[in-house]
């Protein structure tokens, strides 16, 4: 294959932020010096549920050195507007979960701000908390509405009753997944100040500048132009910085407003992990009717998620989980009933995968169960039912293009040596003298790219490319670079569309005062949706350049010259475009029928591992994954994303366990909430499959979340292959494998 020209689409060019990050020059929010600033510390609730009776301040403490901001100081609404407005910025009365913010203290010395918290006493009237999905559904105590349910969905295709009638086999299963912590490298942190003209500015570690902006407008009751939100270099987010930064920005800005000084509010790891959002724990029940030859006849599914105390984006997480519940398999009769319920635990929220990892964990293990019941290899079962062009999904969507599921499956089977290893490992496991049991497990998944249903239409995202008087070309978008490489990919797309070296294109800081609202940096939409807008905007600039100069000038001097006529005396000429709904995409939000997503990405994985016969420790030997992402704009970054997401999924499957008791996360440190180290991460063979999507930039589809969706069930399948034991939940800890051996009284 000929190499694409440097800096353009399809080339693994170096990240635009590489030099700054490698040399330590990149400035994260805590790196900024803000002269005269106060450091904020947050007083939080010490109980899971009840009421605050009294807050008293130790008279011996020098409160005159502090600024204390409370609910009464909020100029506008005391809630954080997101999808709903049920979460107070500061609670004055009702306690809905542990670690709920009560007030914020500012002090010029950070340690003193935290010291001050120890001199505040809160008296509570405690109530019995609702802590689990089962307790919430039992409804003995209502935290919300009439049934503790934030949101529920129903999808129906065909008739489940009719589907079960001719079944040769009916297979049932119940699967559970736990919380997961995003564990980004950089903890949450926001700095806020009030400009001389009264503009409230928040600057920090966040994913979605316009989400924070929308929340601050309500909290401070200001016109939108008097609120400014700026994205600092952000050290990872994974969904964890989608909604919670709105609270932190609100707290910091409230202190700034009251004290008249800049305020820095930076969480330490404990506070970050104990207080902020996690992946939703879920229970998923499958009942599947199959024919003897391995055709799915009917799928009857129930998904229940634990939303925690407030709505956050739980309804949307549930929606996405519901829409992915069947797995990438065609079935004529489907029913999915789902709900997300309230508990007195810190609100759960967005996390890479956004409901899909929960759904795929269950769907893929169910495929294993069905295969076992039919005496069929599970890969063959997948092959017989996988989506292809022409498939009709559970919502009635007809897949018209870019369906790489089977291509991923076959490539992954071939490159991983799946069939050969199955046989080899069976022999290895039978022989007595081996130190381990070996196994290989497989999984297949899909991931709908972009917002669900009519989401993209409602967002009506905008992005722009501008040419300044001095010849500089800038990409203007609110999409943030969280480490995934968005800025690099944007320069490649814009440069390709303009026919210019990428070095001539810069990306503007996502700052609500400078960039249009291109929606949130979520849902694997950045490259596919925003990238496409940038491609269109760049095409607009190109047309004008060609009109003015006869062609696109290939250097700064030429661009500067062309800018003279294009800018027409102004500082810059901006080419801004808006998302346009494709005509043939329809979605019914009431019935949940239609095009759930413009397109799906697909992936297959084979996990090869061994279990120690003495200690039951699981060692990952190799992960092979083939992922259909339409087009890799930057293959090096794409593979990096896939490896990182896979490691995150492997950690969820084997190590990570948020120990919630009494509504609290007890292990809120990275010393006791264990994520994989490099030594735990196996060699990975990442294979890119490119089934182009006609509406993505250069064929690109979503990529960021999918690697998180599929490895956990493959790990469980591999552990089964090695040991003969099935696990319906994760993490598969050595203790659980050991307990199975003891129960089975199987000798070593």
């Amino acid at each position, binding site marked *: 294959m000929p190499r694409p020209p440097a800096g353009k689409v399809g080339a693994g060019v170096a990240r635009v932020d590489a030099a700054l990050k490698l040399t330590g020059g990149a400035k994260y929010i805590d790196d900024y010096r803000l002269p005269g600033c106060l450091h904020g510390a947050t007083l939080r609730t010490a109980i899971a549920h009840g009421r605050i009776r009294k807050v008293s301040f130790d008279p011996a403490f020098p409160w005159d050195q502090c600024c204390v901001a409370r609910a009464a100081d909020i100029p506008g609404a005391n809630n954080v507007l997101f999808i709903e407005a049920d979460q107070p910025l500061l609670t004055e009365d009702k306690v809905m979960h542990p670690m709920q913010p009560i007030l914020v203290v500012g002090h010029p010395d950070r340690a003193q701000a935290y010291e001050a918290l120890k001199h505040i006493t809160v008296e509570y009237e405690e109530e019995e908390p609702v802590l689990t999905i089962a307790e919430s559904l039992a409804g003995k105590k209502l935290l919300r509405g009439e049934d503790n349910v934030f949101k529920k969905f129903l999808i129906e295709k065909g008739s489940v009753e009719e589907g079960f009638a001719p079944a040769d086999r009916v297979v049932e299963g119940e699967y559970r997944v736990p919380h997961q912590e995003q564990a980004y490298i950089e903890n949450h942190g926001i700095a806020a100040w009030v400009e001389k003209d009264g503009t409230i500015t928040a600057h920090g570690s966040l994913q979605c500048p316009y989400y924070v902006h929308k929340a601050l407008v309500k909290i401070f009751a200001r016109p939108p132009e008097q609120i400014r939100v700026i994205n600092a270099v952000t050290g990872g987010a994974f969904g964890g910085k989608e909604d919670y930064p709105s609270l932190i920005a609100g707290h910091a800005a409230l202190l700034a407003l009251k004290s008249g000084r800049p305020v820095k509010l930076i969480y330490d790891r404990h506070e970050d992990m104990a207080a902020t959002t996690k992946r939703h724990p879920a229970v998923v029940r499958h009942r599947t009717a199959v024919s003897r030859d391995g055709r799915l006849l009917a799928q009857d599914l129930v998904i229940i998620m634990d939303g925690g105390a407030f709505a956050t984006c739980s309804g949307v997480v549930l929606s996405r989980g519901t829409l992915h519940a069947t797995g990438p398999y065609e079935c004529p009769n489907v029913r999915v009933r789902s709900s997300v319920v309230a508990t007195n635990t810190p609100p759960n929220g967005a996390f890479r995968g956004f409901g899909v990892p929960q759904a795929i964990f269950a769907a893929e293990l169910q495929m294993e169960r069905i295969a076992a019941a039919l005496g069929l290899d599970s890969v063959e079962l997948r092959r017989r039912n996988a989506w292809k062009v022409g498939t009709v999904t559970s919502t009635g969507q007809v897949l018209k293009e870019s369906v790489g599921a089977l291509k991923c499956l076959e490539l992954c089977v071939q490159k991983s040596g799946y069939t050969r290893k199955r046989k080899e490992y069976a022999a290895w496991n039978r022989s007595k003298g081996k130190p381990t049991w070996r196994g290989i497990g497989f999984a297949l998944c899909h991931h709908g790219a972009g917002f669900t249903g009519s989401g993209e239409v409602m967002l009506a995202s905008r992005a722009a490319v501008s040419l300044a008087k001095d010849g500089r070309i800038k990409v203007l978008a609110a999409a943030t670079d969280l480490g995934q490489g968005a800025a690099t990919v944007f320069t490649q797309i814009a440069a390709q569309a303009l026919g210019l070296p990428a070095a001539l294109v810069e990306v503007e800081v996502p700052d609500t005062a400078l960039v249009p609202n291109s929606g949130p940096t979520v849902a694997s939409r950045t490259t596919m949706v925003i990238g496409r807008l940038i491609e269109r905007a760049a095409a607009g600039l190109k047309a004008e350049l060609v009109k003015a100069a006869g062609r696109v000038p290939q250097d700064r001097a030429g661009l500067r010259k062309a800018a003279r006529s294009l800018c027409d005396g102004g500082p810059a000429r901006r080419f801004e475009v808006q998302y346009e709904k494709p005509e043939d995409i329809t979605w019914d939000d009431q019935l949940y029928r239609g095009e759930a997503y413009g397109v799906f990405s697909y992936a297959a994985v084979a996990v090869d591992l061994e279990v120690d*016969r003495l200690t039951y420790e699981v060692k990952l030997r190799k992960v092979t994954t083939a992922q259909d992402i339409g087009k890799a704009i930057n293959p090096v970054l794409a593979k990096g994303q896939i490896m990182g997401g896979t490691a995150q999924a492997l950690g969820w499957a084997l*190590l990570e366990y948020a120990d919630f008791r009494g509504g609290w996360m007890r292990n809120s440190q990275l010393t006791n909430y*264990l994520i*994989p180290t490099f030594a735990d991460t196996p060699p990975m063979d990442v294979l890119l499959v490119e089934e182009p999507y006609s509406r993505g930039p250069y064929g690109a589809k979503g990529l960021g979340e999918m690697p998180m969706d599929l490895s956990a069930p493959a790990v469980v399948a591999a552990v089964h292959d090695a040991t003969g034991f099935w696990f319906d939940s994760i993490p598969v800890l050595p*203790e659980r494998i050991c307990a199975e051996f003891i129960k089975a009284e199987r000798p070593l």
Partner: protein
Amino acid sequence: MTVLRPRDAAEAVALYAARPAALPLAGGTDLLVLWTTGALNGRTVLDLSGVKEWRSIRKTVTGLSIGSLATHAELRGDPAVRREFPLLAAAAAAVGAEQIQNRGTLGGNIANASPAGDAFPALAVYEAAVVAVSRKGQRSIPFCEFFAGVKKTNLAPGELIASVVLPYLETRPRRQLFRKVGTRAAMSISKTAAAGLLWVGPDRRVRELRFALGSMAPTVRRLRAAEGLVKGKRLGRELAAEACELLRRDVSPIEDARSTAEYRLHVSQNLLADFLLGTQGSH
């Protein structure tokens, strides 16, 4: 926080005598955890990094004398340690990860007295002695008598660890083992950790077994009952099973955040049985 920085051993001992409440800093990997939580605010720290004479690893006629400030990285790389006391080298290589091994010291690890100290099972089977110094002089404490409980030692006020002495083994063991079972591949605390030495006579009878477990009791434990049982006997499945049954006499595993009592016991028994039978994992 007040930091005292002695320049040599004599000054360290004198300063510590005057401020017995000071916290000795030998590498800082455990102190740092406390420091970030604010638990050391207002405390006095005795920084031993200037005490050069406690850094060296020296061969003597009867054994190896390891300075208390020798780092885990130095231990894992030292030719004499690797040749004469390979289980200690293996244990040092299992501590945290390279960053921790570069800073953490053997003396600091011992003084911290965690039930999960990675080096302890190896030191227990090598029958090491801890050399403690104070203004009153120097004394040698057998390693197995050094700990008083979880995070507690038998050091007297004002005593600092100067070195650890490992006596040379008279004959090469037939079989030896160090195995740390942690929570993950690196940066982990052990759920159980085993060290074993086995000598077998020409009559194929056990001359001596030394086997120690960490993280299975408030302090590291030698399996005295199992060691006594196998002495003079020929190893076989039945004897190994009996030895595993006796394991419980010397340890009392607990359920905690890292693991279950059942797992700790079962895996420790697996390791002991495997070691005695020489079936697979041992080396």
